[in-house]
Every structure is written in structure tokens, then in C-alpha cells.
């Protein structure tokens, strides 16, 4: 078990390193320079010399390889560098925002699972009946509706019918659950719809698959109650693929909130990412991408472990 874990974690390193290299050098190709933006922005009138000096100060004049090496050295000591825009440590910039993003993602995940499990199961059991068709259409629609559009409609609905808009500043859940919820529930719903659609579809198809299995027939032949056949025999097996999807989607959400955070003006890492990209704040972007990649791989690992726990074939092999 431990051997496996360490092996997996070691395997993650080359992947993440690859992500780091790729991101770093891709970003350096991006046209545009944060220093100009910073000093020439809105009627800035500084001279070229000043700009060059600032570049030197930020180490932008060093050869790329050196810059990369510096970054790596920093990472090794958990020093992610400082934002070229605000001059604040990247760690800080991210830590103040990540909580919000994670919370939305988690809420979306919960919502989706709560909706998806029953929905998927029902449509699988009533396959090719009108129920199934309705569920399928609803879920496919879930994949089709852009979450940012859904978000826009939500906000407008709230404003037009309730003359109210969600709070604009983030209050941690523990400080004031109500304020926190009234801000974050909407984006969670907006992305949760697609999320639940994806999961529901997976649940449906895997239950349909499982119900075809011989051991389901065996269970029936034993005279097991139908609800037990589904609840005990089918579910456990059907859940395995569903879990994978929940995990992967979650991992994607972390970065995937980019658009939705714009719509709801959430101060999360998604928005930080977009802003950093538009300002060419390399340091922030590369760190964020790496962070997202790490989360993604970690979630993957967790999913696999969970898989192991649920699937004895893997647990004792």
C-alpha cells in the first residue's frame, strides 16, 4: 500500500515538472510586458530607461533558463516568488482566493452528486421509458447550457424579480454562513448543473452496464428483493466509474471556474488567473497552472485510492 502510494507520488513528479517547463516557456513567448502595462498604464509617461530599470529589478532581463532555474529553486523551498503586478508574494495572492474557489467547487460537487445519483439511477432503471427520455434530455441540456449564460440569467432574474443581487465581497463561511451562502450558492448552482449532468449520465450508463452483468441475474435467481439487487449488488459496482467522474470533474472545476467567477465577480483563483493572463503576470500564471495541475493529479490519486477501497479486486491483488 505505502509502496504503491510512494510510487504514484514519485510518478507525479515528472508530469508536474513537464507542466512547469511547458507553461513557463510557453508564457515567455506571450507578447506584451507587464512592466510597460504597469508604468505606461493610464497616462503613465515614464521614459524607456525607467522601464528597463524596472525590468532589471524584476529579473526579466536574465536568460530564460536562469529565470526557470530560479523559479524551480524557489519551488523547492516553497517560495513561489512575488506577483509582478502587485509585488505581493504569490503564495499570499493565491491563499486569499483559493478558499472561495474551493468552496464553490465543493458545493457544486455536493449539489451534483445529490442530484445525479437518484436521477441517473432512475433513468437507468426505467431505461427507454418516458422518464428516461426526460432525464436524458435534461442532462444533455446540462452539458449544452453555458454556465456563464446560466449565471447571467440568474443574476438578472434576481435583480428583476427580487431587486436584490448577491453580495460582492466574500465572507468566510465560519464568519457568517448566511452571507457566505447567499453569495456562493448561485455560482455553485450555475456550474453544478453541468457537473450533475455529467455525473448523472455516467451513473445511468454504468448502472445499465451493471444490470446486464451475470451476477445481477444470480442475485435475482437467489430471490433477492429487487431494491436490494439495485441497492446492494448493482450500486456498489456502478459507483466505481461514477466516482472517477466526480473526481475528474472536481479537478477540472478548480480551473474551470474561470468563466463563472467573471460573471459573479468572485474573487477566486479563476478570476485571478484571467487577470494575470491579461496582464502577463507570468509568475502568477505559471504558479496557478502548476497549482491546478497538482490539485488535478492529487485528486486523481485520491480517486484511484478510493477506487481501491471500494473495489476488492484491487484492494487484495
Amino acid at each position: 500500500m505505502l509502496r504503491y502510494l510512494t510510487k504514484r507520488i514519485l510518478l507525479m513528479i515528472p508530469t508536474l515538472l513537464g507542466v512547469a517547463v511547458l507553461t513557463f516557456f510557453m508564457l515567455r513567448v506571450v507578447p506584451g510586458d507587464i512592466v510597460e502595462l504597469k508604468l505606461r498604464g493610464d497616462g503613465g509617461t515614464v521614459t524607456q530607461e525607467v522601464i528597463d530599470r524596472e525590468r532589471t529589478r524584476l529579473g526579466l532581463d536574465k536568460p530564460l533558463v536562469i529565470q526557470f532555474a530560479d523559479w524551480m529553486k524557489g519551488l523547492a523551498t516553497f517560495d513561489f516568488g512575488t506577483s509582478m503586478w502587485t509585488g505581493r508574494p504569490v503564495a499570499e495572492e493565491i491563499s486569499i482566493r483559493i478558499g472561495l474557489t474551493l468552496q464553490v467547487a465543493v458545493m457544486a460537487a455536493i449539489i451534483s452528486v445529490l442530484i445525479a445519483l437518484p436521477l441517473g439511477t432512475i433513468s437507468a432503471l426505467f431505461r427507454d421509458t418516458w422518464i428516461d427520455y426526460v432525464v436524458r434530455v435534461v442532462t444533455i441540456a446540462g452539458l449544452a447550457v453555458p454556465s456563464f449564460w446560466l449565471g447571467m440569467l440568474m443574476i438578472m432574474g434576481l435583480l428583476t424579480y427580487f431587486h436584490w443581487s448577491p453580495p460582492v465581497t466574500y465572507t468566510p463561511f465560519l464568519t457568517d454562513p448566511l452571507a457566505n451562502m447567499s453569495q456562493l450558492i448561485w455560482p455553485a448552482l450555475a456550474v453544478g448543473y453541468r457537473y450533475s449532468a455529467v455525473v448523472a449520465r455516467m451513473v445511468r450508463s454504468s448502472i445499465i452496464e451493471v444490470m446486464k452483468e451475470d451476477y445481477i441475474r444470480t442475485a435475482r435467481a437467489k430471490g433477492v428483493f429487487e431494491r436490494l439487487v439495485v441497492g446492494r449488488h448493482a450500486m456498489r459496482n456502478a459507483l466505481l466509474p461514477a466516482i472517477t467522474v466526480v473526481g475528474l470533474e472536481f479537478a477540472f472545476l478548480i480551473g474551470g471556474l474561470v468563466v463563472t467567477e467573471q460573471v459573479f465577480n468572485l474573487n477566486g483563483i479563476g478570476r485571478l488567473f484571467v487577470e494575470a493572463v491579461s496582464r502577463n503576470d507570468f509568475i502568477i500564471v505559471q504558479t496557478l497552472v502548476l497549482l491546478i495541475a497538482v490539485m488535478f493529479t492529487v485528486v486523481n490519486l485520491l480517486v484511484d485510492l478510493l477506487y481501491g477501497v471500494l473495489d476488492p479486486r484491487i484492494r487484495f491483488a
Partner: protein
Amino acid sequence: MKALTLLSAAAVLLALPAAAQTETPRRGGVLNWAIAAEPPTYDCHATGTFAVMQRVAPHYSTLMKFEPGNYPNIVGDLAESWTVSPDSLTYTFKLRPNVKFHDGSVLTSADLKATYDRIINPPDGVISNRQSSFVKVASVETPDPQTVVFKMKEVDASMMTNFASPWNCVYSAAKLKQDPNFPAKNVMGTGPFKFVEHVAGSHWRGERFEDYFRKGHPYLDGFRAVTMSSSAMTNALAGRQVDAEFRGFSPTERDRIVRALGKDAKVQESSWLLHMIVTFNTEKKPFDDPRVRRALSLAIDRWGGSASLSKISSLGVPGGLVRPGSEWSASPKEMEQWPGYGRDMAANRAEARRLLKEAGQENLTLTLMDRNIAPYVTAGIFVIDQWRQIGVKAEHQQVELASWYSLQNSGQFEAFIDSFTQFSDDPSNVLYKYASYDRSPVAVHRATDRELDALFDEQARTADKAKRIALVRRFEKRLFEQAYSVPLLWWQRIVVMNDRVQGWTMSPTHMIYQDLGDVWLAEK
């Protein structure tokens, strides 16, 4: 129909602030206001963005300032009194007594010298964005703790304006001694509010400075500047999540908020010291040919565009290089003489086609670089449509802010939608944008035109206003002939806030009147 009632509503509201002034200000309350964009630094010497100005202004004072409610009249802020020598080469300021910094230390002339020295010749690692405005200052002297004296090399007509610039926040000499870059990461001044916290991407908080030198001020207990995207702002104001926004909205945003807030909405409008420009890259063919540039300028129906675009965007009236309606600006009649400002579009377009033909560019195609936010996009769409009507095909290249700057500074563009803003109408401030590239890094048309430079210098040292105006006209005339970069439309500033917010002064620039010292919240 609907639109009509709405505008009248806005009109009524316009009258409101005046009325409000007469009430006795109420102390207390925290003002929540919205602001877009994150500040790249806290140091107002180092930058030109309102994202810094509007946040730090409440924490600092300046030597002089524009008189609230009476723009562009200049009064003292830290200065109690001042004299200008007849040859206008010596400026002497007497400072207010016992002005305190937020750290309790008392302000002396040393602090002002330190501040201005930092601006005029910044130490290594310190960025001074307005060095150029003070090139003519010979020395800053402090005969006694309450007196500051500026000695000039030569006359500069804009000097008083520069002293009133909101950008010259006065820092504590002591702090600068410790770290010349102290202001970049810390906020400590003599302004009405003490700095509390800045949560990146979320908000900025300040609280009342009890020892503020203007007794009784500020009225507010504190303020909270909430960072948000512009689309979120309208929602936030409409949803009463914030009470004000000080930069400006588009007419449609205004209408949205007014609809939502009803009579609680307060709308204040003014022309804006901010204008859209079409800048050509005079180093690239065929834009090195004045005929082509003039043709492209001629093709634009500024009057027609203004009439319609002003309904849907912040773009307002046509104007020259200085704000239309300001003391320096040309009259509409004078404007109509300029190429591209004539009312007869048919004639303009015909002329434009002729010029292109002459330059052998009948079917010119070009790429118009632009930002990807309103109203830049609006302007881009408009210009492209206008050019199409003289047979010019333009590809719209919308880029991120950073690329926008780097492309224009590195000259990797054919033409682009440019803009320029300043804190005052003073010609030296605004004409600077149109001077030669080697003299003014912001003149990204990259042309060198000594004639313009000469006119610029002359107006700068001309104290006589009438003469100076004449020079400005000549400058404009020359520019429109050459059309290195041509004004498109000037912006319309529309500030919408909740009626609770009182005592704030509207002005043609969003850089001044932001210390919030006179602002108060009415009961509602």
C-alpha cells in the same frame, strides 16, 4: 418613450447635489464604493492609474489642490498661503501649522522637500511618473520648517497646476529616509483617512484620522473600496451592495442603475478629460503618407457617431486635443474647419477617397489594434464601419491590456484605438501626447515633428492665457494636417451613486476630489 422619462429623471437628479450641499453634513457611517482593477502599487508618484489614485487619495494630502465645486480654480491643501514672484521663477509656500501624519509625527517643509525631490530626481529603484512635469524646477528649498520655496530654471505656465496635481502625494521624509520605496508597499500620509487593510482582489479599507488638519473632517467613520469587474458594478449598485462608483458609467449602465434604484439614484454628468484617439504607425507604409492618415481621419463621421454612440457608450462629443468646453478648447465652429470635423460627410468621404487614390491606396486594408473592453470595442467597431464606407477594409485585432501596451510601444501595429487622460486641462499636460516620439514616450505614433515640438515649448512658457490659447490652436491645426494620431471622440463622464452619498464633487476628471474628506452619508 421609456428612454425619455428616464432621461428627464436623470435631469432632475442632476439638480440634487446642489440642494444636498445645503443640508448639514451628518457624521458617521462607512461608505462602500466600487472600483475596478487592482492597484499595481501604492505609490502615487510611480503610476498614472486611477486604480491607485482613487484608493490612496483619502490617505494623503497635496501641497495645493483644485477647489471643490469650483474646478479648475486652485486652492491650498497643505499650503496655507503662497506667493509667486513677478518673473514667475520663484514659488513660495507657507504650510499649515501642526499638520499630523497618521503615525503622529508632525509635517514640516522637510517632508515636502523630500517628496518633491523624490519626484524630480528619484533615487535608484524609485519610479517617478511625472519627472517631466518638473524638469524646469531648479531647486526646492526649506528656509524654515513652515516654508517651502521652488526655484525655476525657466518659466512654466503649468506650474500651479502641477502643484495641485493629485499625484504628488506628500510622504513623510522620515519614512523615505528609511526606505525610498516605502510608499510603494505602505500607506502613511496626512490625509483624512488612515489605511486599514487591502485584501487583494477583494477590498481596501480606511478609517477616520481623528487628527486630520481640517477640523471636523472627515465626516465618514471610514470607507471600503470594493474591487469588482465593471459588469459586476452595475449589479452591485442596483442591488445596493455598494453606494457609489467614482470613475464613470456608460449611459446604458446608468439607465440600469437608475431603473433599479428609482429616486434613490443620483446621476451626475460632465464632459471627461479622457478621449479616444486613432493612432497610426507613421513608421509603417502606407501610414507614413500624411494623405493616407488624413483620409482615414476624414472618413470618420464624428458628429454622427457622437450622436448615436453617446447613447450606448461613454463616448461623448467630438473635440480637439484639449477638452471641448474647457477654457482652452476650440469652438465647434473652429473645429468644423479641421479635416474630419466638417459636417458634410459626403464631401469628407469623397475627399478621403480622392486622397487615397492620390496615394495609390484605393483598396487599402489594415489591421486596427484595439483593447477588448468597452468603449474601446465600441470605438473600434464604429471606426471600422466608417472606413468600410470609403472602401477601406480593416481587420479588428482585439488584444489584452498588456499586449496592447507592448504592441504600441514596440511599434507592432498599423493603427490602433488609443486613449489619453490627464488630471487637468492644462495644455502642457494634454498636448504632450501629440509631441514627437523622441520627446514624449506616450506619443506612440512614433513621428518626429519639430514644428509641433516648437509650438509645444512655446505655449509651455507663455504665461499670457490668450496667447497660449492661440498657440494651442496652431498646434492643433498642424496636427490635423499631419494626422499622426487624431482624436476620435471625447468621453462623457457619468457618475451614478446612491442618493445617500453627499458632499462629493463632480469634475471632468476621475483623478481629483477623491480624498472623501467632505463626503458624508445621509440617513435613509
